[in-house]
């Protein structure tokens, strides 16, 4: 196993660990805001680690820039959708308990 492989492997495993943490948070945290907090922070870092692992593995600038683009777009989409969900939950905190139950 070359040093490059080792770096790739450790980055990928670290990324998977963050995804696992984010998913556990999504499933176990009590309310919408805590869940979003777990999901956005951990998963964005996980995506970054997975992307950088793959970038190290490929070693091709075209693929590296594509992976960077993927990470940035994913970051943007996660940020905006989390913001919209949180705002909706904040506005409708009182009057929609059954919808929250459905998501659980």
């Amino acid at each position, binding site marked *: 196993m070359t040093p490059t492989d080792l770096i790739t492997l450790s980055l990928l495993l670290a990324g998977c660990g963050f995804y696992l943490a984010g998913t556990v948070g999504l499933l176990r945290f009590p309310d919408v805001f805590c869940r979003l907090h777990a999901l956005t922070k951990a998963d964005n870092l996980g995506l970054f680690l997975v992307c950088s692992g793959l970038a190290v593995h490929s070693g091709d600038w075209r693929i590296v820039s594509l992976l960077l683009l993927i990470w940035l*777009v994913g970051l*943007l989409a996660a940020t905006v959708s989390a*913001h*919209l969900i949180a705002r*909706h939950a904040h*506005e409708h905190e009182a009057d929609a308990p059954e919808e929250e139950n*459905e*998501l659980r």
Partner: protein
Amino acid sequence: MIGFLLDGLIAAGLVGLAYQAVTSRSLFRGIIHFVVFGLTMALAWARVGAPDLAMAEAAIGAGLTGALMLVAYRRLVEDRRDAPVDPGPAKSRLALPIAIGSGLLVGVIGLSALFSDVEPGQAGQAVLADLQQVDLGNPITGVLLLYRGIDTLLEVAVLLTAFLAARALAGSESGTGSPTTQGPETPMVGALLAVVIPLTVLVSVHLLRAGSYEPGGAFQAGAVLAGAGVLLILSGRIAAAETAGLLVRMGLLAGLVSFILIGLTPLLHGGPLLALPGLWAVYFIETAMMVSIAITLVLLFAGGGGLKRGKHG
């Protein structure tokens, strides 16, 4: 070995998600499970070596079908808040035996096809050999437009017919219930759209262009473009209108009309129907089909006959 494990995981995930989708407690959960089922299907297509199908499944099968189901769910829920939406599963003693029997039937058919001694895929080999002479690197685009042109033509017709039928069913009074977000505008949505919409258009044009020599094509490109339209509707930039303007009508018909016109021209000088006169015809028809597919899917999502500027537009 790891590949086989991954395939096993995907196959088990498909079965579990499908079971959850048809039996889960609430309908909303069912929709979510169905969407994830579609995405897992896309993974399965990628694993069996069919990237065209993976893209089509992710964009059309999971994305747009899911969006259409969520819109329909919302119309069911907001129409009558108090009514029971989901009566839950019925009891049937015959269901399980019939399901096992039909599953066994499909399994026997599939396994006997897989392990029979018949030389597989003669048509596919003929296609690959034939397409070497034409400058068309993606055999699936070749099959869709050069060999099974009539099917592809009718497929576009079916999509248009489905839209017209859904439009006729919706009646005139329900055209206003468009799936726009409520509440005040936030600057973040504008920032997202400013980045994502040009990127989506770029990706769909790339998919269209790539469709002739690598995975991609009119259907995938049209579905991605429709995704941009769905985003614009959700953010209130465009909204459903009662009737379609000239541009929307032309877009709806572009694919079908150009396919028919180009397909009919060989008849003038004694050629067979739908024998496309060259590669330019393939590109032209694909472009027109992309526009038609995108507009039809967006209108199905919007639930209206046409499009207009939305309240945030």
